[in-house]
């Protein structure tokens, strides 16, 4: 899980560097925001000259899925003090969630062990920041590398994630509507089409699920 994040951290660092941002800004993204996919999206949007408001709104929509993680962890963290639950949120990335859920499935009492949670969270965090730094350095060393293939890296990685998430027929409807709406709204100013298309596709997915039911595909 940690290793899988290495190339993404490096690519993010190199991408930010290629975008002409100062090194400390690129590093600040990874150190303060600590959210892989939304950082990539934000960097792409910065490159296209989108307005800060659109960037933040889009990040917000992308990160809403983390609420699902938090909600599903509620019964397993109730025993912990508030002071401890607050910093937990910062480390609750896709990877930390997956690791913690995996650990929970192996233990009988169904309670999150805070040492384990913060341990894996800190490991992911330091790895993510370190790889971002590596990417920045690599970007300085090989400027021609960063002009090549960073957006394709994102496209193929996202394609892999989308395919892994196509579990129900309604997910296919959602992806299809997203693709068509994405084409139709491409020329909208400040990338507003991205947010609009995503919302339309989410509604289409929900409606399709209501219509065909939630039977698993195949």
């Amino acid at each position, binding site marked *: 899980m940690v290793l899988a994040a290495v190339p993404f951290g490096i690519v993010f660092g190199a991408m930010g560097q290629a975008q002409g941002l100062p090194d400390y800004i690129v590093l600040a993204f990874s150190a303060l925001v600590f959210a892989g996919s939304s950082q990539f999206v934000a960097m*792409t949007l910065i490159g296209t000259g989108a307005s800060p408001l659109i960037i933040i709104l889009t990040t917000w929509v992308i990160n809403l899925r983390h609420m699902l993680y*938090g909600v599903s962890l509620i019964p397993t963290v109730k025993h912990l003090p508030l002071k401890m639950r607050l910093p937990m949120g910062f480390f609750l990335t896709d990877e930390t969630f997956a690791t913690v859920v995996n650990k929970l499935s192996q233990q009988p009492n169904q309670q999150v062990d805070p040492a384990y949670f913060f341990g894996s969270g800190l490991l992911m965090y330091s790895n993510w920041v370190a790889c971002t730094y590596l990417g920045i350095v690599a970007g300085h060393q090989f400027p021609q590398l960063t002009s090549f293939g960073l957006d394709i890296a994102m496209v193929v990685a996202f394609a892999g994630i989308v395919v892994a998430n196509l579990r129900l027929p309604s997910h296919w409807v959602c992806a299809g509507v997203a693709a068509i709406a994405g084409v139709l709204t491409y020329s909208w100013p400040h990338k507003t089409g991205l947010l609009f*298309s995503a919302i339309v596709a989410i509604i289409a997915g929900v409606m399709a699920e209501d219509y065909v039911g939630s039977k698993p595909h195949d």
Partner: protein
Amino acid sequence: MTEWLIIGGMVAVTFTPRTLPLLLANRLRLPPRLHQALGYVPVAVLTVIIVQTSFYPAGELQLHWRNPYLWGLVVALISARCQPRLLLTVLLGMCSYALAKWLM
């Protein structure tokens, strides 16, 4: 300055949805509709980004075989359908893109 504004805003919209449910623990119940809709967010957002990046390499719609992004995308989609390792999918997709770009 704009960069710090973006980072600050992103910190807020990242930290809040992650932390809020944990803090409210027993008191929060998401409306089922919202819960259902959240499940579609990754597919919806990522698909739009894929389409808007790979279909428009130079800012205009290029839905033909000479667009190397489409080769990378198609190979990545096939790879992801056939096996679960994301890293392999990324590698295969990027190699197909590089090959297509080099051949044309």
